[in-house]
């Protein structure tokens, strides 16, 4: 199995995969190539579905160790273990429409998710109140932009300050849009270049060949 430890094997594999994904996208190709491309896309979905188990197994292992060693607060580890295993056993063993499975979702997952999102409004209010303290040109611009949009968005604002609307729309559709656009373009360029570097065998850390890369940095 020594071939699995060689960098060249993986470079060839990456180049092979990349070519079969890019070529059918840009060129009109025979059906066989398209089928291969479809197989790759199908396969990565299946791999993603199995990868979930890696997280589950490592989490289980960690919590078991916490309980075995009676670490401080080990009973919380029991909570994680019992709930995650209960979900898996009931959901897969019985059915995903089982009463207890849905009960656990309604009791923990749904309220947990909603709560954290709602908590953000509190943090945003306090962070906002601090961010909008005008003490430099930057913060003045920040405040100015936020003020107009807040005035426009609240339905009440449209009645009390009708002049804020057009200004806010102007800012949203020009300045904010331009900034977001450059942001997305520059990140997209970053992704394209990363993909090319991967194809050229420059990012082997990303496929698990970490040590070689880390030691090269050290040189």
């Amino acid at each position, binding site marked *: 199995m020594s071939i699995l430890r060689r960098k060249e094997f993986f470079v060839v594999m990456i180049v092979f995969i990349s070519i079969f994904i*890019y070529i059918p996208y840009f060129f009109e190709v025979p059906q066989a190539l398209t089928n291969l491309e479809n197989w790759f896309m199908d396969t990565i979905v299946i791999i993603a579905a199995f990868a979930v188990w*890696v997280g589950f197994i490592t989490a289980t292992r*960690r919590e078991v160790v916490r309980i075995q060693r009676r670490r401080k607060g080990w009973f919380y580890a029991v909570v994680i273990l019992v709930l995650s295993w209960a979900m898996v056993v009931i959901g897969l063993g019985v059915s995903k429409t089982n009463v207890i499975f849905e009960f656990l979702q309604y009791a923990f997952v749904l309220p947990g998710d909603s709560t954290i999102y709602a908590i*953000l409004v509190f943090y945003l209010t306090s*962070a906002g109140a601090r961010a909008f303290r005008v003490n430099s040109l930057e913060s003045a611009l920040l405040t100015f932009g936020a003020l107009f949009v807040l005035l426009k968005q609240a339905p009440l604002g449209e009645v009390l300050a009708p002049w804020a609307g057009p200004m806010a729309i102007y800012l949203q559709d020009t300045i904010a849009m331009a900034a977001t656009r450059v942001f997305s373009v*520059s990140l997209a360029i*970053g992704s394209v270049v*990363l993909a090319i570097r991967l194809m050229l065998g420059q990012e082997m850390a*990303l496929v*698990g060949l970490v040590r070689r890369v880390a030691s090269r940095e050290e040189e």
Partner: protein
Amino acid sequence: MVIHISPIVEGKLSGLIFFLVALALTAYYVQNKKVPYIRRVPAIDAIEEGIGRATELGKPVIASPGMSPSGIGASTVAGLSILSYTAKLCARNDLRLLSPMGGSAESYTTMELARDLVETQYKLEGKEAAFNIDDMPFFSGRQFAWASAYCGMMLREKPATNIMVGVQYASAVYISEVGHEVGAMVISGTTYLSNIACLAASSDYVMIGEEMLAAGAYLSRDPGQLATIRTQDIMKMVLIGILILGVITLSFANEAVITLLSS
């Protein structure tokens, strides 16, 4: 109207040209190995200061490569580079490094890579025994479960520094505000533009979008990665050129550039 050259799929010509130009430039810079000039991003000083602070206070450091919601992308790679650099400094200064993993349904591969990277850095510093995989726990593939566990960890461990660079969604403000509350120095980097105003208020240092990629490349000290930044700059200049040309020609009712881009 579009230009159509068989066998290129209709409407894909411009993308193909863009891709090939990027490929040629990257290949050239990878071959060349010449390290270009790079503006030092202030974030790097911030990271070093953060580690220094933790050493002084004798408290742990908490760092995360983000939640990588769409698998491994450019921002996640930058996050991993910064995590790896942080791990190196932590190992060198005998600091405990906490790193909550997870955050999205695609974070499993990122988690494995991050664990490998951190472990390798500890090994390279000769502090293999100091690495503890339990300090890099998996907090589920769900954004908010991960975020609340992250915050719980901060409440209990009271880290001196919180470095959160990578893809961060809404939970970034939550994490950085709690970090601010427990007295940690917060260094954040995000691709989520709408969060930045708030992150700026609750963090000590924010990396804005691509700044993160530059910092990651700078810290990796890998000439290839640094050259990438040069490639990106050139691509941006090319796009600016196309943009100016397009605006001018379109103002005179000539749609040549639009046609080319649509091809």
